[in-house]
């Protein structure tokens, strides 16, 4: 018998009861999937998405300036491809990695298919459709280049490469908001996926160092530091995010130095940051607690200073332990951005609500919500996949289990 069939039989039909359960579940799932596909392909009116795809993507960002967002997308795509390829061409010291594992080929093929199909399904202008093809090609090309020639890169160059990402974030900020010779685009014109991703990434990037500091503060020997951290964390965790968002709109203008929270969007982004930091601190604290005391003692006995001990010995291990919990936090942070629609910001949900209120598209809520769900699911799945890959790479322990003992 075919090994696949044999495995299916062992997994699904080992006993009569197993078989009945499997059949029941398969019937249930296929009925649901069939219903959904039938509805999506025949009954659903996707015109509401097709007509508003730009609105969903970037809100009311001026059309004449949208080339800046395309450029940013291209830069991000190239950086992704390069990082991906470099990771594959530099496997960990103790194992030999493949340059093109099967999953990589699969993911790349899938992305290319989506880049061709989705713009076509959205009835984008041919010029825009071809841009998506180019982006897919760019990803493949940079991935190939970095994989092929990455091993020639010197060690310091390799160490500096991750700095591309924060640099790109700054460049992205300039491209989006203008300045340095570019026409300014006021934040009130940002919207849709752009605003969702921008506020989420801003909060994720800033809440991380803040959360680590809070966690360290909470474990500090200095009472003042410890109590400040505890009070902060418990206050934030005791209040619903939506309350804090409303509160932030009213008081952040006084609390933060003038330039930092100039308008509603930045105030909301800061509130998200402060909110997520408290939860992240607890995740990091659990990670710190998981590092045996002997680790710090060994580092100190070798003469490492307290900051060196923290940065080189304790935190790398603590963050590795806390990674799943932290990514969970990031994912819920991404979803929490939908609350911004309640304070009148046009992120994805906000855009969706205006579209659904448009008399032209009345009665198409299902299509809109399904699209929204898919968009969020895609972003969260990407975060989850990335974190799992990172976990695998950072974990010497899983490795030792599979490796043969000397």
């Amino acid at each position, binding site marked *: 018998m075919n090994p696949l069939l044999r495995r299916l039989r062992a997994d699904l039909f080992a006993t009569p009861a197993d078989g009945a359960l499997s059949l029941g579940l398969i019937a249930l799932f296929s009925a649901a999937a069939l219903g959904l596909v039938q509805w999506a392909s025949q009954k659903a009116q996707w015109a509401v998405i097709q007509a508003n795809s730009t609105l969903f993507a970037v809100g009311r960002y001026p059309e004449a300036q949208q080339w800046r967002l395309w450029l940013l997308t291209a830069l991000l795509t190239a950086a992704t491809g390069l990082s991906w390829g470099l990771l594959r061409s530099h496997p960990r010291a*103790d194992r030999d990695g493949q340059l093109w594992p099967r999953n990589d080929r699969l993911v790349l093929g899938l992305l290319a298919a989506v880049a061709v199909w989705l713009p076509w399904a959205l009835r984008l202008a041919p010029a825009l459709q071809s841009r998506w093809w180019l982006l897919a090609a760019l990803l493949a090309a940079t991935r190939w280049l970095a994989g092929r020639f990455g091993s020639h890169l010197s060690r310091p160059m390799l160490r500096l490469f991750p700095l591309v990402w924060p640099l790109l974030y700054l460049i992205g900020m300039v491209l989006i908001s203008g300045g340095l010779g570019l026409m300014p685009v006021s934040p009130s014109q940002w919207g849709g996926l752009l605003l969702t991703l921008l506020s989420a990434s801003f909060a994720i990037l800033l809440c991380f160092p803040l959360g680590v500091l809070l966690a360290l503060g909470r474990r500090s020997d200095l009472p003042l530091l410890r109590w400040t951290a505890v009070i902060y964390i418990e206050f934030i965790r005791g209040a619903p995010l939506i309350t804090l968002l409303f509160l932030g709109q009213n008081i952040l203008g006084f609390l933060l130095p003038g330039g930092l929270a100039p308008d509603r969007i930045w105030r909301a982004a800061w509130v998200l940051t402060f909110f997520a930091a408290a939860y992240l601190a607890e995740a990091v604290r659990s990670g710190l607690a998981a590092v045996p005391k*002997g680790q710090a003692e*060994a580092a100190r*006995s070798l*003469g*490492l200073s307290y900051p*060196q001990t923290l940065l*080189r010995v304790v935190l790398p*291990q603590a963050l590795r332990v806390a990674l799943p919990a932290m990514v969970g936090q990031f994912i819920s942070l991404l979803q929490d951005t939908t609350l911004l629609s309640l304070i009148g910001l046009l992120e994805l949900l906000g855009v969706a609500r205006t579209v659904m209120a448009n008399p032209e598209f009345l009665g198409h809520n299902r299509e809109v919500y399904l699209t929204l769900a898919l968009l969020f699911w895609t972003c969260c799945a990407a975060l989850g996949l990335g974190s799992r890959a990172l976990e695998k790479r950072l974990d010497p322990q899983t*490795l030792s289990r599979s490796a043969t003992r000397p």
Partner: protein
Amino acid sequence: MTASSSNLMIEARGVEKWYPNGYHALRGVDLSVHRGEVVVVMGPSGSGKSTFIRTFNALEDFQKGTIRIDGNSLGNDLRQIDAIRREVGMVFQQFNLFPHLTVLDNLVLAPTLVRGRPRAQVQAQALSLLDRVGIKEQAQKFPGQLSGGQQQRVAIARALCMEPRILLFDEPTSSLDPEMVREVLDVMRQLAHEDITMVVVTHEVKFAEQVADRVVLMAEGSVVEEAPPAQFFKNPNHERTKRFLDQIL
């Protein structure tokens, strides 16, 4: 003892320690260790022997008495503590290797970071140290992939890579499987013949007999007996030592 008093590497006088819960762990401990000497500290569990040697590199603080390491007195000055730690290596019962670094990086980390030595030079030294403890082939592995005995030998090499003048061993073989104890003791025996000063907390009687210049018995937070191994094991002065030896021999 052949060493003169100017050769004192460790000089502890009347060291007293209370734990925060009020437990009186060290009750006026005196100990002098000379350059190149190997001193073995024995004693029942809870006698304060581990606590005592951990005060030598300030992993434990103490409330009364003085400790001088190579002439420098241990106080609250953090910078002086860091300076002393650089000269005092320590090998732990639980190895405490850094699991996220390769074996080689475990050795290279401190000398490059603390002493600011060039990486290539430290790497060469690290490899020769790993060779000396018999695990050069494992340099690129992670600690979790090694056996307990191998890990402890890496830990010794890691301490040596800082070129300390004093090496402290805190029950280095107590958490090893019996068949791995020997490989670690062999490495320690080799070291004992060099001019590094060693203080070893251990229950390994044979090791103490062969290698130690002096054996110290601690009980209830103070030093009970201090004698060359021949006398300590065959003809101790104190009743407490006899009782202890009866239990472990």
